[in-house]
């Protein structure tokens, strides 16, 4: 089930590649901020700065979340998005709106609202996980299919709820289906970074245990690490990170898959000390480059999330095919 490919042969010290990525990340940030500026600096700092921060927060959150999720499941194809995590989050959000009425929802303190949603989400996800992962006999294909179908169903339900609340508006559902990187509020952004930093702090303390987790349940328990509680904790972290990114921009199902596979390829290490920051930087860099390229190079009127969906879907198919081939030989 698990596909633990050996990391690429190392050249030089391990942190070498990480530094290269960090440097390119900052270059990309600078490029994004300064390219083709025609307005006043104040405006640009405000406008592009906010967008840049959004991209960084979302990219990092999705990168880390997917990496942790794959470590927890010991599988390199599953991602929180594919398992229906973000659809679940959106559904929860609209059910809250439904129960409280949109006025009550809007007047609530955003931080309070966010934390309630994330808590509810964490519990429902853990429940779902217990149900789905119940038997160890469950095949990986069954899991994936369940997740994908569940995602479809939850999205339909979400659209239905939104339409019931506001039956005259067609566009409501549309916004729920596509992620948008330019329309977020400053409070949410703050919240996103706070959530992100808390998760990073926790991860920094337990990163060596995660390396052990990669060896499998049996070895993990033998080495004195409580497997079950660690996996549960990881799932909580994943939920928080998914909440961060989905609350900020909306669903981006396949971004995590792209980021994590580039990380496995390029990080040159399987240690979480390296791969976690690598995935975070990688996610942010991909989003920034993508957004920049769409805006300036192609001058293409489209949404970045749709492009990511397209590319990520292709990658997912490719991975399934490769895995199938490996199993049969």
């Amino acid at each position, binding site marked *: 089930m698990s596909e633990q490919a050996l990391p690429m042969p190392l050249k030089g010290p391990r942190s070498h590649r990480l530094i290269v990525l960090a440097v390119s990340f900052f270059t990309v940030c600078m490029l994004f901020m300064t390219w083709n500026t025609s307005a006043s600096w104040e405006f640009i700092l405000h406008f592009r700065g906010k967008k840049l921060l959004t991209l960084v927060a979302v990219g990092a959150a999705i990168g880390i979340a997917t990496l942790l999720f794959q470590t927890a499941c010991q599988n390199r194809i599953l991602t929180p998005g594919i398992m229906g995590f973000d659809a679940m989050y959106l559904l929860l959000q609209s059910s809250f709106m439904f129960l409280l009425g949109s006025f009550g929802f809007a007047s609530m303190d955003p931080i309070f609202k966010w934390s309630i949603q994330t808590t509810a989400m964490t519990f429902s996800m853990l429940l779902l996980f217990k149900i789905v992962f119940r038997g160890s006999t469950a095949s990986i294909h*069954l899991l994936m*299919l369940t997740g994908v179908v569940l995602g*479809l169903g939850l999205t339909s339900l979400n659209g*239905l709820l939104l339409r019931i609340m506001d039956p005259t508006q067609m566009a409501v559902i549309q916004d729920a289906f596509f992620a948008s990187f330019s329309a977020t509020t400053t409070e949410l952004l703050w919240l996103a970074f706070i959530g992100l930093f808390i998760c990073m702090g926790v991860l920094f303390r337990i990163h060596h245990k995660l390396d052990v987790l990669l060896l499998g349940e049996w070895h993990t328990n033998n080495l004195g690490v409580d497997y079950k509680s660690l996996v549960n904790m990881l799932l909580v972290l994943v939920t928080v990170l998914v909440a961060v990114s989905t609350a900020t921009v909306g669903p981006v199902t396949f971004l995590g898959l792209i980021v994590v596979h580039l990380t496995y390829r390029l990080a040159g290490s399987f240690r979480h000390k390296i791969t976690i920051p690598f995935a975070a930087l990688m996610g942010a860099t991909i989003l920034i480059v993508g957004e920049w390229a769409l805006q300036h190079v192609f001058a293409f009127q489209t949404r970045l999330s749709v492009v990511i969906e*397209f590319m990520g879907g292709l990658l997912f198919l490719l991975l399934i095919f490769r895995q199938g081939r490996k199993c049969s030989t």
Partner: protein
Amino acid sequence: MIVFAVLVASSLAIGALNISDPAFDSQLLLQTRLPRTMAAILSGAVLAIAGVIMQSMARNRFVEPGTTGAIEWAILGMLCWILFAPQTPIWIQLIVAVLFSLIGTFIYFVLLRSVPSSSPLMAPLIGIIYAGIIGALVSLIAIHFDLLEFVWLWVQGDFSMIMQGRYELLFFTAILAFLAYRWADYLTAMNLSSSIAQNIGMNTQVIFALAILAVATIAGTTAVMVGILPFVGLVVPNIVRLFLGDNLRKTLPWIAVLGAIFVLFCDVMARLMVPPFEMPVGLVMGAIGCPIFLWILYRQVKRV
């Protein structure tokens, strides 16, 4: 049988009663109501049959036009039609949609053949992702040409636009469904295995091609007429199979009737939820169909 007849009649009555209640302008109302009910019945029956044909061809219980990209390709075809020849009549749009979904279904089968893994869950998994990729491509093109609103109208299955003179092409697919019934034995044999089918003297390639053509026509037509109606082709044949087995000669009428009931029921639900307004029936079907599908899936897996 009686139960099914009663169900059809009652869901017909509820569908008719709901809107004609306040205003007794029956003459005019029947001209939109009757077509609407007919469209729901036809598309439900026909999609369920398309699902079962697809399942026989792929020899897999979890595929249907919606999970194999056929419908997404049809919508891609409609998009191309509106980009390149929007003035031509609707039947040209229909032909383009059918052609595209034919290509899409063909590509799906090529993909499926090249997967070495024999897990029966691979077929729907690949299909859904494949459909998602085509869907993303459609959105990309639509956003670029500022047509997203149009596509959105098509994508959400909705019977509220159906009026007299707008749905009659659906009857054409009903002919295909009858043909499928005539050749039900062939489909049953294909479901067993292609070597068995060949052994009893069938030209499997021709049957396969005809079946794919039928599926593509059904998928394309319903996509043009009503939009995406998810899960009918998946849920209905599987439920019928649970009770009546695999002999399509026997089960095909049941599948058609149950498919019609399912869509009709969802359409009535969609009208009843927020009375003056209507919900897109596709969303209702997605929300209802998903748990049923998961239930069938887990039941199946447990037995294996």
